[in-house]
């Protein structure tokens, strides 16, 4: 039902369906329409023009009424097209189900055969079949059905293989059901939608093909009309009587086009990716829809965010991924942003240079000042000039973030040349130097490697080299070590630490790991559900975390060698950012939460770079409410929902 509604919502598909139904109705009632007999010749009115002598669409070279032949021919073409689709679908589905269900050698032999048939340009096969059986409408039908069987067999086999190992099929086998019954009652009902989609996208094609064979004189034989043979005859007198060719040609076009529109509608309606809008193309920069004026520049750092808000707008829901973040980082400083998955830390980082995929991302408020210039709503050309030049990114998982088909050298050269007019040779020399700076051994030979030929650690070094290519002021590192193993992680961290000291880089380091923060960052901001809940110097926060969330997050970090303290996972899950609770977002997971916590928004309170968003903080923070230390965080037994929460 929902599928039908979706098809109907697609206007073009709806029109396709309506037109198709009209044509089919017309074909069905043709025998009762007051028409000339389709094969009645009248030598006195050959090739009459439209409307002449009472013939609405004129006559052909034998004086036969074209309207009558058109409608009778439409009947034949529709019947033959649908018949061959049904035959191909049934036989193809049968082969596909048998191959997919039984697997093993059966599958192997059948699929080899199918591949073999698909190895032909299909017309050769159709011609060979017609040659063997002789020209004729039924033989053309057989030929078109036969060449389309492989398409169905392949599709259906793929789906069946997926179903054949599902639990309900195993259950049916254990219940002692025979293969035939399992196929008919368990497999077939699940495969039918696929068959319908495959048929709806190919039936138009089959009508074209049968018409084509008739056009060649291999299908319907004179004097019986079908649309293809009418066109074939019209071709012979094309230059003297072109009008004879319009009706059958346009009729085929109308039929096939309406079928294709409807078929596309069905396919789209059944494609879950299209419903979720996941197939939209991300724009060059994140859409900005800022209500109100941009917050003023406070001059607190080389990169300064004020009240930054970013949302994801899907059809019915709005996810507030970043809900008013204010942060600043000075040259030479490393700021850590820490939080669980989904806390909005990556979206914050990507918003800086408008890299949040849009749609669905929208920056809805605040400002991001890079060297005093607001990048939110900045013209694309200006923003592009800043990207990679003043502000560079290092991403997680370099296998996915480096282009797989360019050598690392080419990717580095490109990073340089999009910002600097230098020769290829100079850029390459610079690239080599960069690779050496990030301590890649054998840089001379590695420069021509593809990303897949390198180890994870090497790839991330390339990622760092690329970020350094234009001597940026700010580097935003989005979980750059998460995909790496621990020893490589340590190397990458010390590399970043050295580079920061040598070059006076400002680094924004995003992570979910307090261990990493402790090693690298001067200051830390803790994010929860799209907001900063605590910030301060790394040592302050590690020594005396003020927010209950921070305290519990730190308790999640394993200690090496000690083993005195059991790990304490945080019970519960972060709130969904499309249904944020009133008041403190952490209240539902907080052991100390009181009613007042759930009433009004809690502000980030504090002074001198140390602040907490809590009414009852764990530790004393100047400018914040008085500390109300809660009970020490105790280890809880590992339960299934906690494991889930941790993941």
């Amino acid at each position: 039902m929902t599928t039908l509604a979706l098809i109907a919502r697609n206007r073009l598909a709806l029109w396709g369906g309506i037109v198709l139904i009209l044509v089919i109705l017309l074909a069905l009632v043709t025998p009762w329409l007051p028409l000339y007999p389709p094969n009645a010749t009248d030598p006195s009115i050959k090739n009459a023009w439209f409307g002449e002598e009472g013939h609405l669409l004129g006559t052909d070279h034998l004086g036969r009424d074209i309207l009558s032949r058109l409608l009778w021919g439409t009947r034949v073409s529709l019947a033959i097209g649908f018949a061959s689709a049904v035959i191909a679908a049934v036989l193809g589905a049968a082969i596909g189900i048998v191959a997919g269900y039984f697997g093993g050698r059966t599958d192997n032999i059948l699929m080899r055969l199918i591949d073999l048939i698909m190895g032909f340009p299909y017309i050769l096969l159709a011609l060979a079949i017609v040659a063997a059986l002789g020209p004729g409408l039924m033989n053309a039908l057989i030929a078109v059905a036969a060449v389309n069987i492989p398409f169905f067999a392949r599709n259906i086999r793929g789906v069946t293989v997926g179903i054949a190992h599902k639990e309900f099929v195993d259950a049916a086998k254990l219940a002692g059901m025979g293969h035939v019954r399992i196929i008919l009652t368990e497999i077939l009902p699940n495969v039918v939608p696929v068959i319908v989609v495959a048929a709806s996208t190919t039936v138009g094609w089959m009508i074209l093909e049968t018409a084509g064979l008739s056009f060649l004189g291999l299908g319907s034989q004179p004097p019986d009309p079908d649309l293809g043979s009418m066109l074939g005859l019209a071709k012979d007198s094309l230059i003297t009587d072109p009008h004879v060719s319009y009706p059958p040609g346009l009729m085929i076009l109308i039929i096939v086009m309406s079928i294709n529109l409807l078929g596309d509608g069905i396919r789209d309606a059944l494609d879950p990716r299209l419903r979720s809008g996941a197939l939209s193309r991300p724009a060059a920069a994140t859409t900005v829809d800022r209500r109100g004026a941009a917050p003023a520049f406070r001059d607190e750092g080389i990169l300064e965010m004020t009240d930054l808000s970013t949302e994801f707008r899907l059809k019915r829901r709005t996810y507030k991924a970043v809900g008013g973040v204010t942060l600043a980082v000075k040259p030479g400083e490393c700021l850590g942003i820490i939080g669980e998955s989904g806390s909005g830390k990556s979206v914050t980082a990507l918003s800086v240079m408008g890299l949040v995929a849009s749609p669905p991302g929208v920056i809805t408020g605040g400002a991001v000042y890079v060297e005093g210039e607001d990048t939110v709503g900045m013209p694309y050309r200006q923003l592009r000039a800043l990207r990679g030049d003043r502000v560079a990114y290092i991403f997680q998982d370099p296998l996915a973030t480096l282009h797989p088909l360019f050598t690392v050298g080419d990717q580095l050269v490109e990073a340089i040349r999009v910002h600097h007019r230098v020769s290829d040779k100079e850029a390459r020399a610079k690239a080599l130097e960069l690779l050496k700076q990030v301590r890649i051994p054998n840089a001379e030979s590695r420069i021509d490697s593809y990303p897949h030929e390198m180890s994870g650690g090497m790839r991330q070094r390339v990622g760092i080299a690329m970020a350094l290519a234009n001597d940026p002021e700010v580097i935003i590192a989005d979980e750059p070590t998460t995909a790496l193993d621990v020893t490589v992680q340590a190397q990458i961290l010390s590399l970043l630490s050295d580079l920061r000291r040598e070059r006076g880089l400002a680094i924004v380091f995003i992570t979910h790991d307090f261990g990493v923060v402790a090693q690298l960052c001067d200051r830390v901001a803790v994010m929860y559900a799209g907001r900063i809940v605590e910030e301060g110097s790394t040592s302050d926060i590690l020594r005396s975390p003020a927010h209950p969330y921070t305290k519990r997050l730190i308790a999640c970090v394993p200690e090496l060698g000690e083993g005195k303290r059991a790990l304490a996972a945080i019970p519960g899950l972060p709130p969904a950012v499309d249904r944020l609770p009133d008041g403190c977002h952490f209240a539902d997971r907080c052991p100390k939460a009181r009613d007042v916590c759930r009433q009004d928004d809690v502000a980030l309170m504090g002074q001198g770079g140390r602040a907490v968003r809590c009414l009852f903080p764990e530790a004393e923070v100047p400018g914040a409410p008085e500390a109300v230390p809660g009970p020490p965080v105790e280890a809880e037994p590992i339960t299934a929902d906690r494991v889930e929460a941790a993941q």
Partner: protein
Amino acid sequence: MGSYILKRLVSAVPVVLGLTIVVFLIMAMIPGDPATAILGAYATPENVARINRDLGLDQPLPVRYFIWLTSLLQGDFGRSYSLNRPVLDEVWERFQATLLLAGASFVICSILGVAAGVVSAARQYGTADKAITFAVLLGISIPSFFLGMMLILIFSVSLGWFPPSGMQGLAYLGGGGFRDVAHHLVLPATALALVALGVIARLSRSAMLEVLRQDYIRTARAKGVDERGVVWRHALKAAMVSIVPVLGLQAGFVLSGAVYIEKVFEWPGVGRMLVDAILQRDLLLVQGGVVLVATLYVLFNIIVDVIQAMLDPRIKT
């Protein structure tokens, strides 16, 4: 790369063998006495006996197949009864004309189809995308032979720019020079290209949309690559990996569509030869033509695979 090509060539051998079996079996389906069926009105006792001897029709099926296969391997595809010349010569000569037509339109539809798909994806839901999507729909819905006829009416009859037919064949086979051939080629190659162009544009569009969502595209943007570079260099290169196999498949469609277009424009190609041979019941010519063209198509697909391997360094060669 050399060893990869060799490997692909070797793996094509069973495919080509299987293909000959399929063709052989189809031809063995001919109901009734094949010799009479082949000869039709010319079925005098002497002729029937000669055919039976020529084709070894008195032997059991597998034996007949091996006799036929052996003669194929020796380059003997038999003689065309309707043309009274060796099948191989006729097919080869006609195939070159088809290759010219199909090749030209393959180049057109590949380049324009991919370009249309890229533009369509880059301007998703924009005017250009909508226009291209509509044109594509029209392209895949219109019968190529009807399109060809309309092109003749517009560009030959009304405007007089291009000839509607009269292609004589290639120069060294007694046809006109380059200008003449090119002049004759424009309309049929366009008609043939437009249909496949639609399919290619569609697939290119969806391949591009898929790639444009990848992380490495975001990396390119983060580096400061401008949108043109992101789309035409980064995204297109990656999308080509999934577009090229589709191009290989489309070559089969172009070759198939050539059969209709050759009739519309009276092009002296292998498609028209096959249709005439079927109508004349010249089955040896059909059989030989199908085997030869299908084999060449298999070889073409090997070339596609090799291009694919050169495009994507991750494919182990």
